């Protein structure tokens, strides 16, 4: 599938995730997206899929405790805490938590599928009127694994001197050098791009294969999905 229609379809799924409030529909979208992400290379996919699903699980487990709906069947009643108020769990709260958790999973997995499966280069080429913006987005997306490696290198550098990093505060001290390092990388990349003629007038595009019938179907599905989600789900 061409990257344009694939991105449109994933964006439609993410939008539908916000519009839909039926659990079965959200669960179905989550399942389909997991299947899509699982087809990515093994060494990259688990961080994305795991992050999305654990985040969703966190919402489902924690959010019923943080507010009181006042409706549904009361399943458990706990103490009243300062600021937070009464702690209880009702069927309404569980239902809403599941909906919100699945929504988060759908949006995060749609982004994961975009990152893992879409050919960002072809997307940049397809962006006729906003090529620079599309390139900036593609480069930002590519920066994620680089930052991950740099962060691991910084942590290793500190531990290699016999210094242990403790807790969030310890790791937060690496944030500033991480940002400084990424700025250095960005400057190096900008220099290399300029040396290769980026920004020169009269740029051309390498020819790309034309859209296949699957691409038109995907685009149609994207429109239908948002429409159905808005009107019936």
């Amino acid at each position, binding site marked *: 599938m061409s990257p344009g229609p694939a991105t449109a379809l994933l964006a439609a799924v993410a939008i539908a995730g916000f519009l839909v409030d039926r659990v079965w529909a959200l669960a179905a979208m989550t399942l389909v997206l997991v299947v899509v992400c699982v087809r990515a290379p093994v060494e990259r996919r688990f961080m994305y899929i795991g992050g999305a699903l654990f985040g969703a699980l966190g919402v489902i487990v924690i959010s019923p405790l943080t507010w009181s709906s006042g409706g549904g069947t009361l399943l458990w009643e706990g103490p009243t805490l300062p600021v937070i108020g009464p702690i209880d769990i009702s069927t309404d709260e569980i239902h809403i938590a599941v909906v919100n958790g699945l929504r988060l999973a759908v949006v995060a997995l749609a982004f994961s599928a975009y990152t893992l499966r879409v050919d960002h280069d072809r997307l940049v080429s397809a962006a006729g009127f906003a090529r620079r913006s599309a390139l900036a987005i593609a480069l930002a997306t590519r920066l994620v694994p680089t930052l991950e490696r740099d962060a691991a*290198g910084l942590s290793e550098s500190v531990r*290699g001197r016999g210094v242990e990093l403790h807790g969030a505060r310890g790791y937060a001290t690496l944030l500033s050098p991480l940002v400084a390092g990424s700025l250095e990388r960005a400057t190096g990349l900008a220099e*290399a791009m300029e040396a290769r003629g980026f920004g020169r007038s009269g*740029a051309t595009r390498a020819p790309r294969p034309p859209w296949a019938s699957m691409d038109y179907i995907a685009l149609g599905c994207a429109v239908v999905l948002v429409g159905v989600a808005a009107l019936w789900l």
Partner: protein
Amino acid sequence: MALASVTDLSFSYPGRIPAVRDLSLEIEAGQVVALLGPSGSGKSTLLRALAGLVPHFHGGTFSGRVVVGGLDTRTHGPADLAGTVASVFQDPEDQIVMTRVENEVAFGLENLGVPPAQIWPRTHASLAEVGAAHLAERRTVELSGGELQRVCLASALALEPQLLLLDEPTSQLDTEGADAFLVHVEQARCAVVLSEQRVDRALAIADRVIMMEEGRIVLDAPIDDARAWLTTRRPRYAGGLTALDPRQQPPVGAPLVRLDEVGFSYGSGPDVLRGESLLVHRGEIVALEGPNGSGKTTLSKIAAGLLQPGSGTMNREGRATYLSQEPGRHLVRETALDEVALGVNGDEALAAAALERFGLSFATCRHPRDLSSGERERLAIASVSVSEPDLLVLDEPTRGIDPDRKAALSEWLVEQAESGRGVLVATHDPLLPAHRRVRLGRPLEIPVAV
């Protein structure tokens, strides 16, 4: 008429002392020029001036004149010069733009406005030229450093430049990767200026040698004359370093770290190590050798205590510190003093003494990232040695450093061993001093004198 001419070029980066002074030279079409010199001697600045990046990208104070392919760099920026000139920089990761290899090579051609029908044929021809045709469909994040640098070379050659500028392109590569890269450079059908710290390899393909020191050209001669000059004036640059003078084998001290039948894999990935054993005593330098992927880095980290073996045992007496690859990228504090003091619980007196020992007293209050690459590396070494560990573990410490710094590092390693420390060095460098060389990948241990 010369392809490129530089006349009375002087340049200072903003707020810095001049990086190059009064340079004049000409480069003829088809010439292969080896550009030698220690770190900070102005080689990169000269290359950037030839590409128009100095002064257009960096700013600063520029005087003199640089003309390449008839284009004066004062009036034509790097984008105008692209195509006439092509550059490959040190770190391939900092120059890759696209996510797929063939798109990466096509990127420059698209920018130059090459007719669309010619882009894919030129892309694939260029990849084939550097032996990377099989990588065309691969994602760039999945490639090794050597493969990435070959893709960068293919991206440069696809532009069909008249002048190819290579700024220490093999500094991130292992020996095999560097050799393969330079074979392809030799076959390029254009003038080449190659800044390279693997001097013997650069001299093997060069027609002419330019040597720079402190921003000035101290040698500009055909290869044979240059070899003679280097042999008498700069012997460390004349065909590479020779092994250090043999010294007496030190008395073997007590065992410091012993690894028995160690196995390791990252997550659910394949085994990186299978049943490897290693012993390092006090007072000895052990060089850990082996091809890429043989597990040198992993075994070093296990010896330093940064990784736990998946199987087998590791026993270590005393403290160990570990210097990672590219240590200059992994500095974490706001001043050089704080950086070194981190390893000794903030003891500034000890840190200041270590800075002085490594000739970095001037940098005490400076931000580590304001230092040159060579100074950063010295700072990193000061940071891991300040706490006077029992075992020093260093991962590829000579990669990309000039012959003078390599000689200084070798001397320092010997001093560390003589003072009773154990030193474990993962390296591809056969000339680094070692009492024993342990090769991963096959059961071979070669005793040698330091």
